[in-house]
């Protein structure tokens, strides 16, 4: 099950990229006149969503690590229950799908705002 690291990118790096994107997204919506620093609510909103995404990603990373551990156990013959691995892999798979869907949605919304005619 190749769910390790979405698209070959380390999940921590992805979380970093996410946060930067979200914070810069808050800057973008604020416009040049109102920077994120000048508008505390926008900054707080951005940070909140960033936290949500970061928590989701760390959760996903944990699930992914569990699945990988089970896969290693299966390969080395230490896995006592076959279904343990399948369940861990399923959890990691569904969590990955959920996270990527949320990311795509957020990115879509951001792009929509960027395309707004000024």
């Amino acid at each position, binding site marked *: 099950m190749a769910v390790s690291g979405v698209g070959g990118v380390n999940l921590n790096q992805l979380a970093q990229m996410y946060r930067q994107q979200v914070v810069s997204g808050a800057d973008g919506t604020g416009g040049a006149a109102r920077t994120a620093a000048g508008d505390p609510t926008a900054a707080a909103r951005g940070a909140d969503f960033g936290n949500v995404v970061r928590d989701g990603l760390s959760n996903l990373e944990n699930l992914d690590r569990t699945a990988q551990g089970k896969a290693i156990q299966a390969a080395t013959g230490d896995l006592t229950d076959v*279904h*343990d691995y399948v*369940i861990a892999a*399923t*959890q990691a798979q*569904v*969590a990955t*799908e*959920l996270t990527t869907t*949320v990311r795509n949605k957020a990115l879509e919304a951001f792009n929509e705002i960027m395309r707004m005619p000024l």
Partner: protein
Amino acid sequence: MFDSLSVNGTGMHVHQTWMNALSDNISNVNTVRATSETAFQARYVVAQSLEDGGTGDGVRVAGIELGDADGRLVYSPDHPLADAKGYVRLPDIDMGEQMTDLIMAQRGYQANLSSLDRVRASYQAAIQMGRG
């Protein structure tokens, strides 16, 4: 998140343990012992529900109980383990019972698998809402 998946996992674990126990019983069905010893005792898996005050947390193996230690005495004077009267001790395991239990354990495992599959499909259908 995804609680149903791990709840199904607990059910599969219990049924897996049950199948292990039944396999052990069947493999030892002809284990002969001397009358001075106890017979091979059948293993019985004790299942216990896990309560969390809500919809429940699945099931766990609370322990393994052992069956009749007396077994049954069989007259077999030629057997090297036979006592002075020619008796040996065999386990008191009914093969028919073990096989029907094995079918129940197998079906229980499969039922948990089906449930797991449907839960996964439901989650994926929900995620599908966000695409498009």
